[in-house]
C-alpha cells in the first residue's frame, strides 16, 4: 500500500487527485495479475504522458509562467542552501574530521566541493542549469494549471529542488577530485 501511496503522490504532481487515485487503482489492479514489476514502469509512463500532454497543450503560457517561477526557485534554492545543505555538509565534514565518516564516501566529496569550492565547473553548470532552468519549468507547470485543478496538486518545488540537488551531487561525485 505504501507503494501505491507513493505512486499516487507522484502522479498527482501532473494530474488532478480525482484522476490520479483511480488511475493508480487501475495500475495496482493490473500489477496484481501482470506482476508487480510492471507497476513502476507503468506509473512512470503515465506520469511522462500526462506531463508531456500538458507541456504541449500550453507551451507559451508555461514558458511565461516559468519565468515567474524563477524568483520562487531562487528563494527556495537559497533556503535549501542555507538551511539544509550547508549544515549537512558541515556535519559531514565534522564527522570526517573525527574519523566517523569515511573520507571517500559520498558527502564532503560531493556536496562540500560543489557548494563551497566549485572544483568541477561543468558539474556546477549542470547543477545551476537543473536548478534554474528545469525547476522553474516545474514551477511554471504548476502555475499553469487552472486554479480549479491546482488545489489537489502538490507543489513540485520541493521534489524538483531535491532532484536538482541529487543530480548535482551525482555529477560531482563522478568528476570531483577534491
Amino acid at each position: 500500500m505504501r507503494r501505491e501511496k507513493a505512486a499516487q503522490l507522484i502522479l498527482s504532481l501532473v494530474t488532478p487527485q480525482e484522476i490520479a487515485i483511480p488511475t493508480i487503482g487501475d495500475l495496482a489492479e493490473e500489477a496484481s495479475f501482470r506482476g508487480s514489476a510492471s507497476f513502476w514502469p507503468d506509473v512512470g509512463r503515465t506520469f511522462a504522458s500526462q506531463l508531456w500532454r500538458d507541456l504541449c497543450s500550453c507551451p507559451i503560457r508555461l514558458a511565461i509562467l516559468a519565468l515567474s517561477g524563477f524568483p520562487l526557485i531562487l528563494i527556495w534554492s537559497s533556503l535549501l542552501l542555507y538551511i539544509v545543505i550547508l549544515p549537512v555538509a558541515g556535519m559531514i565534514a565534522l564527522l570526517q574530521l573525527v574519523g566517523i565518516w569515511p573520507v571517500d564516501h559520498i558527502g564532503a566529496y560531493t556536496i562540500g566541493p560543489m557548494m563551497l569550492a566549485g572544483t568541477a565547473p561543468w558539474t556546477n553548470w549542470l547543477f545551476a542549469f537543473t536548478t534554474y532552468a528545469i525547476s522553474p519549468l516545474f514551477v511554471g507547470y504548476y502555475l499553469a494549471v487552472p486554479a480549479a485543478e491546482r488545489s489537489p496538486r502538490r507543489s513540485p518545488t520541493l521534489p524538483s529542488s531535491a532532484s536538482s540537488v541529487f543530480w548535482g551531487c551525482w555529477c560531482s561525485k563522478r568528476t570531483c577530485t577534491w
Partner: protein
Amino acid sequence: MSAPSLGDFEQIVLLAILRVGENAYGVPIRAEIAACTGRDPAPGALYTTLDRLEEKAMVTSRLGDPTPQRGGRAKRFFTVTAGGLAAVTQAQRSYQRLLKGLRLLGGANAT
C-alpha cells in the same frame, strides 16, 4: 454539422468502451484493446486519450465506489456520449467508403 475528427487511437478507445459496456474503466478497456488489436496500449497513452476524449465531450466519466481490492481506490467508469458515438460512426463510415472497391488481403472488401 460534421462531428469533430478523431485520431486512430481515439477511435480504438471509443470502440473499446462501447464493447466493454457498463464496466468500462481503465483495466478492461486496456484489455479489450489488447484482445482486439493485438497490441498492448501504454497506460499513459490510454489515460491521456481518455482525458482528451472527455475534454472533447465524447465520453463522460463517473467514479464508482471504493473497493478493498484496489486499496480503497474507486474505479473511474467511462461512457460514450451521443457526440462520441456520432464521431466514431462517421469515422468508421469514412473508412468503409475508402475500403469499398479495394481488393485487400482475403478479398473481403472487394465489391
